[in-house]
């Protein structure tokens, strides 16, 4: 051991005083995550506000942690939640179990389930961490209408799916807004 070695340690400390601080003051300062961060899930809507989820349970099937519970139900002409025959009647994600792997969003056949960047998924009550459909549904953008309601875009299903986003502009959905994800701020 050399005679200056004990002082070297102080040298490190002293040098660090003039470097940029890496510590994040988390609760006070809120930093956005990386754009593709696997955060909370979101159930998206069609441009007229109908749900994209068809209750197929493929997300639940894909989930390695068994964190998702889905039950489908039948759309009727009077009470329509999604285009087509079937909609997700009950949708729950248990964030105590979710490992954020994203297999569920890969499994989703309608791009209904996506993940947003929101990561504050902690609580002191287990029950509050089981998110239900109301918690997970994407917010209504301008021009969207809360289901149940009939399919509003175009004359037939072909129009609805193929030209839906364009037809939605006419209903006041803002330009440049994707249909799959709403703005992050809307949630936070």
């Amino acid at each position, binding site marked *: 051991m050399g005679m200056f070695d004990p002082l070297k340690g102080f040298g490190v400390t002293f040098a660090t005083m003039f470097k940029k601080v890496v510590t994040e003051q988390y609760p006070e300062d809120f930093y956005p995550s990386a754009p593709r961060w696997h955060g909370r899930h979101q159930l998206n809507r069609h441009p007229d506000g109908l749900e994209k989820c*068809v*209750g*197929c*349970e*493929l997300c*639940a*099937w894909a989930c390695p942690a068994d964190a998702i519970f889905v*039950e*489908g*139900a*039948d759309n009727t002409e009077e009470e329509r939640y999604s285009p*087509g*025959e*079937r909609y997700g*009647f009950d949708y729950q994600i248990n964030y105590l179990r979710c490992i954020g792997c994203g297999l569920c969003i890969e499994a989703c*056949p*309608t791009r209904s389930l996506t993940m947003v960047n929101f990561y504050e998924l902690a609580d002191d009550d287990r029950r509050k961490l089981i998110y239900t459909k109301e918690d997970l549904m994407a917010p209504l953008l301008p021009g969207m209408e809360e289901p149940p309601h009939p399919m509003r875009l175009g004359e037939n299903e072909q129009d609805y799916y193929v030209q839906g986003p364009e037809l939605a502009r006419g209903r006041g959905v803002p330009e440049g807004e994707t249909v799959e994800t709403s703005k992050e701020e809307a949630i936070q």
Partner: protein
Amino acid sequence: MTIAPENTETEVPEGHVKLVVDGEEVIAPEGELLIRTAERLGTVIPRFCDHPLLDPAGACRQCLVEVEMNGRPMPKPQASCTMTVADGMVVKTQKSSRVAEKAQEGVMELLLINHPLDCPICDKGGECPLQNQAMAHGRSTSRFVDTKRTFPKPISISTQVLLDRERCVLCQRCTRFSDQIAGDPFIDLLERGVHQQIGTAETADIHNSASHTSSGTPFQSYFSGNTIQICPVGALTSAAYRFRSRPFDLVSSPSVCEHCSSGCALRTDFRRGKVMRRLAGDDPDVNEEWSCDKGRFAFRYAAAKDRIRKPMVRDESGELVEASWTEALRRAADALVAARESNGAGVLTGGRLTVEDAYAYTKFARITLRSNDIDFRARPHSAEELDFLASSVVGTTPEHVSYASLEKASAVLCVAFEPEDESPIVFLRLRKAARDKGTKVFHIGQWTTSSVRKTFGELLACEPGGEAAAVDGIAEHAKDLDAALSSDDAVVLVGDRAAEVPGLFGAVTRLAERTGTRVAWVPRRAGERGALEAGAVPTLLPGGAPVSDASARATLETSWGLDSGTMPAEPGRDTAAMLAAAASGELDALVVGGVDPDDLPDPAAAREALANVGFVLSLEMRPSAVTEHADVVLPIAPVDEKTGTFLDWEGRVRPFSITLEGTGALPDCRVLDTLAVEMDADLFTQTAQAAWSDFSRSRVVSAHQGSNPDQHSRPAASTPDTPDGTVRLATWRQLIDNGSLQVEEPHLAGTARDAVLRMSAATAERHGVTRGERATISTERGALTLPVEFTDLPDDVVWAPARSPESIRSVLGAGHGASVALSGGAR
């Protein structure tokens, strides 16, 4: 040393052939289909239309294999589901032949051309043969780029079966099932070419298929649910199960049907403590792979909102209020002890109990209430019936008469028994026997019912009530039937309606003695056969020994650990006598299981008895006409929530174990055991297992079984004349009606047969009834008005369903064979 070369030639047994499958030599029975031979070797050839219980069709072409005969390869791949094995055949499946593999891939690609990408919203997704086989044997991409053919999305072909024609691969399993097995060809292939589709007469107009245009018959079959189960794609789906869950959510548990005495094996699928669906189980000895719609769809009664889950006692104001088990049991025990010490208490168990539960009732009556007043028959009954059951039914096993013996029989005679309505699987087996083996089926009834037609049967028409005379007249008037019944393998099936016809059991016994034919009794309810065996009747002990037999009583006293001489020696009262005694005050209390007064011979008298008797203890699942009058109601478990055993009509033991655990519901045997403890007796029936082992240990088999001198001397009663202006009523219950286990099933109820009043045209004319109008049958007690349909009934006889919509016995106070007034013109 030289070793003789081993003889590698394998012997081909008689009736077998030798062929080569995928390079492997195999010996197969003559007539076996190639697809099965390959399956025995462990090679699964993909298939859709092939089903082992249906005739081969070769409709889907998915099972193509390469075949070589006599060294010459066939020019094209052959369908292995229609080709039978032959000697010297060389077969190459997809395993060893690229040609077969490519052919299968091609067929799969063709089948998928018009198949929509519905998997995420399709109920079959996850258990779909098309999905699975497309993954295993299909190409990874499709070359089809054009627009798929579309049809309007699901159309309902009955209230419980939905048809999605886009998904259909035209395998014709459903149409073949309906035509061959069920005999209800309401569903068939329509149109041609790309428009070819499955449909009913209602959907036949494809250009306007959303609306039901023509007035054809919908898919109204008691067996339509089977088509949903065997559909290899999601084309036929169940309206009740629509979008409820996915196969991976479900826990499947084998179970036994509680509805009729057929004893079907079922598979109950549940999710999160709730039964989602039931499917037919696979039991070749009993139901093969089929079940009736009632067994498949009627299970929601157990999850009904009004289910009784806590004990209830009647308070001072006369209201039933929830109480603790301790309080309710105390109240019941005190009242029953008091009744026992004065006039006694009677036990009506109802016909839906498991053997264990029925046995607990038996012990409860005999040990705790010290009485033989117990009867399981919650329907019209007679002393004659009881004698017949004691002499010819109790203790019989499938060795006597079974489903297999029906199939082997040269002739079957159904007496006062409507197989399709009363025991649908017996009906399917009779149809199979008649269709495949040429069994002659004879029916002694009133009209050419669908059972008669579909079993290719012969009707021996008689007046309602005249069945006994008809059976006695066989020797004289139906010589061919008499000869047919004299053969070794003939069988006579008697339904429980026979109890309503005086002298019929005597006539059947005489017939059996004369011709040597075997007689089997087919009750309507699942628990009746088991309750009889368990001794839940006034004259028999568990196992079938008569109550009056002192040595049998002594044996039972020993095995039950009772003091000698404590068992009551007097035969007890039957259901009707118990109710009469209760009404007149000769009985102080009634213990009632699952009994609906509307099924009893005199519903009005039964209600009066329940209202007048000092104390009523009801063991029930849901509020009923009995709980209305009950002083204490104890909740009991439905079959899903308990373990138990049914005996089917053959006497076959059908054990099942609990499906939904942890619901806290207790079976009857446990409730009675605890109640008995409150009354200072031990029944040893805490669990179904304990009750079963106690039952097996204690049954006392009758020494006199098989002979009953009383029966022979009973003459067939001549039918009394019908007074002027009246007609004779024939009636029985239809399979799907307003029974108490069919509540909360709107989809099932929609497939019930129409409630109509049937009569011949001559009868109608005589009584001023016109076709298409409604007519009224009445007694001094009430009247029932139904639409009229003309049928081949004997003159001055009308037929009406017994409980759809209303109970005939409740409204008219009359049953099968009674005289009723008929008038037309009512609206």
